[in-house]
C-alpha cells in the first residue's frame, strides 16, 4: 500500500538537510547595566518533520546551552513559543523547517512590543494584564440553574472561533499599533472579550464594551490584518475585532 520513492535515501529514511539559524541574542547584564542584542548563527542538521523548535533544541542541547527560549507542549496548544521567524510571528513548534526557504539563514527573533528578558524570552506580564482587564470570565446574574444552562448549537457556534485562543501573544505582538503604543489592549484581549460578549449565557457584555470603548480600546485598531495572519490557531482576529466595534455601535450582541 505504500509506494517507495525513488530516492538515494534508504527505504523509509527521512531525508535530512542542513539549515542555518540566525538568532537574535540578548543576555542581560546581571549588574543591571545595559547590553546590546547581537545575531548568532548556528548550523544544524534537520530532518523532514523537524520544526523550528527542534532546530532550537538541537542548538541548545548540542551547541550552546545558554540559548534561551520558552517551550512546553511542542505541538501548538500551550502557546509558549511564539517568536518572530523570518519576520513573521509564529509558533516555533508549528513551523516546519521544510516549509521555510532553507537556502538562506532562518532568522529567529523575540516577538515585538514586549520587553526582552533574555534571548527569545519576553516579559509577558503587560500582555496578561490587558487580558485580565477585559474581565475574561463568564458574568451572570440571578440564581444558578440546578443543571446546565441551555445553549443552542447555533448560539454555541457564534463564539466558537474566539474560544480557540491560547494566549500566545502572536497576534498582539504583530500589531503595529501595539508596537508604538504599549497601552493599547491589543488583539488578544479583544478576542477574549469577544469570546464572552457573544456567549448567550453571559451578561457582562455592556461592561466589557465600556472598557473597550476606552481610547486605548478597539478604536485604535487600524485593520491591518497582521493579527489574523499571525494567529497560529487560525482565529479570524480582525473579524472578531470588527464585530466588537459593530456591537459597540449597535449594542446588538
Amino acid at each position, binding site marked *: 500500500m505504500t509506494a517507495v520513492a525513488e530516492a538515494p535515501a534508504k527505504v523509509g529514511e527521512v531525508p535530512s538537510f542542513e539549515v542555518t539559524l540566525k538568532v537574535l541574542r540578548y543576555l542581560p547584564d546581571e549588574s543591571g547595566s545595559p547590553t546590546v542584542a547581537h545575531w548568532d548563527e548556528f548550523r544544524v542538521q534537520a530532518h523532514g518533520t523537524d520544526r523550528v523548535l527542534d532546530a532550537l533544541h538541537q542548538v541548545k542541547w548540542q551547541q550552546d546551552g*545558554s540559548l534561551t527560549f520558552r517551550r512546553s*507542549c511542542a505541538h501548538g496548544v*500551550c502557546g509558549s513559543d511564539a517568536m518572530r521567524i523570518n519576520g513573521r510571528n509564529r509558533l516555533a513548534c508549528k513551523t516546519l523547517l521544510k516549509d521555510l526557504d532553507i537556502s538562506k539563514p532562518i532568522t529567529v527573533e523575540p516577538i515585538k512590543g514586549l520587553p526582552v*528578558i533574555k534571548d527569545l524570552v519576553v516579559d509577558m506580564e503587560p500582555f496578561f494584564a490587558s487580558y485580565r482587564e477585559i474581565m475574561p*470570565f*463568564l458574568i451572570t446574574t440571578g440564581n444558578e440553574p440546578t443543571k*446546565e*444552562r*441551555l445553549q443552542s448549537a447555533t448560539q454555541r457556534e457564534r463564539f466558537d472561533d474566539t474560544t480557540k485562543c491560547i494566549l500566545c501573544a502572536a497576534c498582539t505582538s504583530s500589531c503595529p499599533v501595539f508596537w508604538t503604543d504599549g497601552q493599547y489592549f491589543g488583539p488578544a484581549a479583544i478576542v477574549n472579550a469577544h469570546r464572552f460578549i457573544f456567549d448567550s449565557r453571559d451578561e457582562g457584555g455592556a461592561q466589557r464594551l465600556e472598557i473597550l470603548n476606552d481610547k486605548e480600546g478597539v478604536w485604535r485598531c487600524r485593520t491591518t490584518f497582521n493579527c489574523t495572519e499571525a494567529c497560529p490557531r487560525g482565529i479570524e482576529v480582525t473579524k472578531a475585532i470588527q464585530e466588537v466595534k459593530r456591537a459597540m455601535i449597535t449594542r446588538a450582541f
Partner: protein
Amino acid sequence: MQTHQYDVVIVGAGGAGMRAALESSTRVRTAVISKLYPTRSHTGAAQGGMCAALANVEEDNWEWHTFDTVKGGDYLVDQDAAEVMAKEAIDAVLDLEKMGLPFNRTPEGRIDQRRFGGHTRNHGEAAVRRSCYAADRTGHMILQTLYQQCVKNEVEFFNEFYVLDLLVDHDLAAGHVPDGEEVNVSGVVAYELATGEIHVFQAKSVVLATGGAGKIFKTTSNAHTLTGDGMALAYRRGIPLEDMEFFQFHPTGLAGLGILLSEAARGEGGILRNSEGERFMERYAPTIKDLAPRDIVARSMANEVREGRGAGPNKDYVLLDLTHLEPAHIDAKLPDITEFARTYLGIEPYTEPVPVYPTAHYAMGGIPTNIEGEVLRNSTDVIRGLYAAGEVACVSVHGSNRLGTNSLLDINVFGKRSGISAAQYASTASFVELPEDPAATVVAGLEEIRTRPDGERVADIRKALQETMDANAQVFRTRESLTAALDDVKALQKRFRAVSVQDKSRMFNTDLLEAVELGFLLDIAETVVVGALNRDESRGGHFREDFPDRDDANYMRHTMAYRRPLPAEGHRQWGTDQDGDHEGPFAHTTVFDGYQLVLGSKPVTMTRYQPMERKY
C-alpha cells in the same frame, strides 16, 4: 532569599492545581506556584472529553461509570475512590458549565455526550455516550475556564517559579519517625526563573499538583516540562510512590512524533487498520473493537507491527482511518487533531489514513492519597498538611490502566477535594517551624551544577534515559529488558553526578533547570523500572511477556516504593514496621548509590466488584 507565608501553597497550575486554588483561595490565604504560566499547563493538551453519567443523550448512571473505571483499571482501582469520582463527576461537569465552559450542545441545548474507550452501558453491553466535550479541545477549554475563574477570584500566582524541595519536619528518607510522632509539612523551597533568586514558602498546607512524568520516555504525548517534579520531590523525602510501573501508552500518537490524536477519533467512528487494511481490533476486542481500553488497543497495535502487519516503508505503525467520515463531521468534532496530521505529517485525513503508534501518555501511579487528597506515608498514616491531586497523585481511581476522559475528571473531582481539605486543615492548624536554613541543600546542589566547569551534558544523559525506557520498559516488558533498563538507569545516575551546564548566568537559566528536571526524571525512572521488575504478572498498562497473565493471588495489591537509607550498624531493619506491608512478592530491596529502594504494598479497596476476567 525571600520568605513568604501562606495558609495554603499549591504547587502546579494545571487543572488540578487551579481547581484546588478556586476552593482554597476563597477560604484561606493561598498562593499558587507554577513553573509555567498557568495557561501553558498540559491540561490544555487534553482533547476528547470528560465523562459523567449525565444521561443527556442516552440512559446512563454513575454506577455503570464506576464499574467501567474499575474494570478498565484491571481491578487494581480503589473502588471507594472510583465511586466518589463517578458520583461527583456529574457536579464537576455542571460546575464547569456554570463557570462558562463552552461544551458542545445537543439539539435541545444541553451538554452533548459522545462515546469513549471502555465506557459502556450496563457493565459492558455496548459503548455508551458519556463523554462531555468541546470539540477535540476539551482540556484547552477546562484550562482556560479554570484560569478565567482564577482571574475573577484574584488568585495569587507565582509564575515561572520552580519548586525544588518539599519541607517536612521528619525526613523519611533519612531515618525512622520516632514512635508516636506525626509527620508535618512546613512549606516548600522555590527558585525564581527570571532572577535566579530562592524563595522559601512557609505553609500550613501544601497541595502538590505538578502533573506527570512522560519525559522519562522518548516517544510521548507529554510536554517537555512534564518531568515528574512533584513525585520526585516527595520520593526524595521518603514519601512512597504508588504503582509507578503502570504507565499508559496511548494508542494513537502520530507515528514517529508521539503527538496525541484523541481517542475521540475512534469515538466518532474512526477505525484502526493494519497494512492489509484489516480492522484488526475485531480480533482482540470483539464487542467494542476500536473502543477497547487503551492498554488493550496499544498492545494490539504493537502486536500487529511485531507480526509483520505494520504499515509504512518500515512496517512500524498502523493506520487510523477516518476517510469514511464526512469532512463536515470531522471539522465539527475533530478539528485540532486533523490539523496536527496535516501540519506535522502532511497527511489529509479526509482522504488518507493517518499513521499512528502508541505514545507514552499518562502515569497511573504517583503519590498515594486517600479520597480527601491527604498524602499517605505508608498504607495508613497521612503526612499532616500535605495533599496531592491529579496525575502526580495516585488515589487510585485509575488502577493499572486509566480510561479515556477520566483524567480530566480526576483533576476536577480530586483537585476540588484537595483544595477544600487543604484549606480546612490550614484554618485550624498552626505553622510548623521551618528547619534552620531551609534552602541550604537545594542552593548547594544548584550551585554545584551551575559552576561545574565541564562535565556530562544534560541532553546526552536524558536522551540515553529516554531511549532505554522506550526500548526496555514500554508496551512489552520482560525481566531481561527491565534488568537492562535498571542497569542503564543506575549508570546514568552516576553520570548525572558529573553533569554540567553551559549557561553560567543567574537570570532565566533554563539550561540549569533542565539539569534539575533530569534529576527528577532519573528518580522517577528508577521507581518505574523497579516496580515493573518486581511485578511478575501482566495487568492493565503493565505487560510482562514472561508473565502474560494477571496473578490476583500474588499481585492484587498496590506497589509502594520507599526511598530509605542504606542499612547501617544498629539500624532497625526496614520493611518490618511502619512502611506498610513487605510480605511475599513485595519483599524486595534494590540498592542504589547512597540509598535503597524498599518496596512494600498496600491493599486494594474493594467494595462492590470482585475481580473478573477482563474481556471486551
